[in-house]
């Protein structure tokens, strides 16, 4: 009787240890992994000082090709609806990647003298992913949008 009890305990112990080991392994992998939606969210929270939680949809439009054949240069167009007057304008637009080695892509800072909150640039994208656009308005409101882009050949070295 006593012998059996010990055996059961041992097996449980083994399961616990094995489980912990597997968890550590997964944690280790995510430590070196690329930017993920979670990492992107972390950065967005940081960029907006926690304002991302009350972010609204709409107003901001991030235009990307549906399929980007070459991830080295992917044209990106950003536009935000705004009158761009002294007391109502778009302050900043951030672009955040969910699948690049680093989540930061670029930030554009506008002023009422910009006339329109439009900007275009070319970006590197490592793989098929979502690109998040975040617009910070002068009154503190935050708008967000996500655009999916399919990347045929990744463009981040390697």
């Amino acid at each position: 009787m006593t012998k059996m009890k010990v055996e059961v305990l041992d097996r449980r112990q083994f399961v616990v240890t094995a489980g912990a080991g597997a968890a550590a392994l997964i944690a280790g992998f995510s430590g070196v992994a690329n930017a993920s939606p979670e990492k992107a969210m972390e950065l967005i929270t940081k960029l907006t000082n926690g304002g991302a939680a009350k972010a609204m949809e709409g107003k901001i439009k991030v235009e990307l090709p549906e399929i980007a054949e070459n991830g080295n240069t992917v044209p990106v167009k950003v536009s935000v609806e705004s009158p761009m007057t002294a007391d109502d304008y778009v302050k900043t637009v951030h672009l955040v990647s969910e699948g690049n080695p680093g989540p930061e892509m670029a930030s554009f800072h506008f002023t009422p003298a910009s006339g329109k909150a439009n900007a275009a640039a070319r970006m590197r994208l490592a793989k098929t992913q979502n690109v998040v656009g975040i617009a910070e308005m002068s009154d503190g409101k935050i708008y967000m949008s996500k655009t999916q882009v399919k990347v045929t050949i990744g463009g981040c070295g390697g």
Partner: protein
Amino acid sequence: MAKARVKAPKKAKAGDIVTIKTLITHKMESGRRKNKKTGKLIPRHIIDKFTAKFNGAEFFSADWHGAVSANPYMSFSFRTEKSGEFEFIWHDEKGEETVKKSKLTVA
């Protein structure tokens, strides 16, 4: 020194919203690419800040990270009011600056 090109209007009417296009030659080395012969990582070297000014007042700027393509292109808008001079500044991580100027006459 990197070579910069700017396409900005020379003439405009007051109140017009004009588009300015800029391009600069720069490798924008992301620091993640390997030298194929040695297998070593090529150190990161990018332009991290672009600023556009009109008569000394900043009206547009951009922070660039490793995700910006080589030979970065940037286009943006400006509302014209009076004549003056545009100034475009590209600031490199190593402190190097490329400056380009362009005059605007408002009729």
